[in-house]
């Protein structure tokens, strides 16, 4: 979770909305990427869940983009993807071969926790009241997203407690 070249003190509402859209876009792309990885490795349940998450991120991104368009029209954006990394997107190595739905959901939950932490950390630096209100709203939404994933987790049958790692052979001489 890193940012580059963002001056939170001087962040305007337009830039904050653009930033939030980029955060959702990055997460959506990562989940789509994870879903494709699961497809390639014949793990359809995890792929389905990652697609569901990608869809949710896309919806949030579209809602934020609509707000931005309503308030600022097509005014040029001053923030780019190069300024953010892994804010709400799960870490690149959070995917694993043959992930169970539980593992997939836990990876998503970790990224929602990470996104919440980002907004909590950024809030004290913000000066603009409207930006502050937006970040508080986004922070609270991340809690709702965590609840959503927790609810999905609760629907799963109990975990067997076994891991793929339990079946890995130790290296042998060749």
């Amino acid at each position, binding site marked *: 979770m*890193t940012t580059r070249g963002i001056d939170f003190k001087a962040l305007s509402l337009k830039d904050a909305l653009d930033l939030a859209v980029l955060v959702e876009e990055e997460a959506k792309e990562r989940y789509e990427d*994870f879903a494709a990885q699961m497809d390639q490795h014949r793990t359809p349940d995890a792929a389905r869940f990652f697609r569901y998450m990608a869809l949710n991120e896309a919806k949030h991104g579209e809602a934020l983009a609509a707000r931005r368009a309503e308030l600022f029209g097509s005014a040029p954006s001053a923030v780019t*993807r190069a300024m953010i990394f892994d804010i709400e997107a799960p870490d*690149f190595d959070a995917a694993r*071969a043959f*992930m169970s739905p539980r593992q997939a959901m836990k990876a998503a939950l970790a990224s929602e926790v990470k996104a919440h932490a980002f907004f909590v950390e950024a809030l004290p630096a913000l000066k603009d009241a409207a930006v502050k209100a937006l970040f508080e709203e986004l922070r609270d939404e991340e809690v709702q997203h965590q609840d959503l994933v927790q609810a999905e987790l609760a629907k799963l049958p109990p975990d067997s407690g076994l891991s793929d790692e339990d079946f890995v052979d130790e*290296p*042998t001489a060749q």
Partner: protein
Amino acid sequence: MSANATCEFQAKDYKSDLKPIWCPGCGDYSVVQGIYRALAAVGRPPHEVAFISGIGCSSRIPGYTTAYGFNTVHGRALPIAQGIKLANPDLLVLAAGGDGDGFSIGGGHIAHLIRRNIDITYLVMDNQIYGLTKGQLSPTSQKGRTTCTSPYGSLENPVNPLLYVLAYGAGFVAQASPTDLAGMAAIIEEAIRFPGFAFVNIQSPCVTYGEEVQQIKGLKAISENLASLGHNPADRLAAMDLAQHYGEKLHLGVFYRNPEPAPTYDALIRERQAALSKDAPPKERILDLFIKK
């Protein structure tokens, strides 16, 4: 906050229709994203880019990139990339491979590309293991590492890729990792823009055969940004000093950028061709050169 200049090309323009078949969570997924972003920032159209690789997991990367691509033979990405660059100097030529491909099987080629200073960007995805062939000891595996070919622990010291290329006089040497995708893209872009041989060592974790400390969390724990350390990338000796910490610390950024880049071999060849062609006989009389007068 300043906006980056808008590019004619987007990162997605360099993404091919082939779906990567790397293990889920592989660091190379991040590297290929970094390459797409860097190519978009440079703005050369895909038909002006040639991407050459050797053999290994990471060497699949040209297939996942929309550009001319050649997945060559083990360790031979660099000589083939060199031939392509000399045959068509206007192409932007990238070469890629893993640590085994680059520093073991193809280790002998690097020195020659560096001394010739051919304008190629060489990206090594260093995961300290032969992942494609199921986890054998590689030239950058740390001493003591237990693998299927070193069941009692490796007795060998690893190759230090950064010191290796710095010692041979590479004009641009940098290190990146998936712990910072935006930083990686910026470094690859800078390497591409450097006029001469540019080397980027990318610590790309192997999720299947790599050790826990080599995964993203482990890498984050030992990473330090060279710019924040106040490192001057024009100082080659300081770069060599920092490069000695390879394996203990993960220094991210540009170790060395020659402030006065030497002419590239491809440019010198063009000059030589132009000079010789002044008094050269017409093509149809070229065989006369071999006839004793």
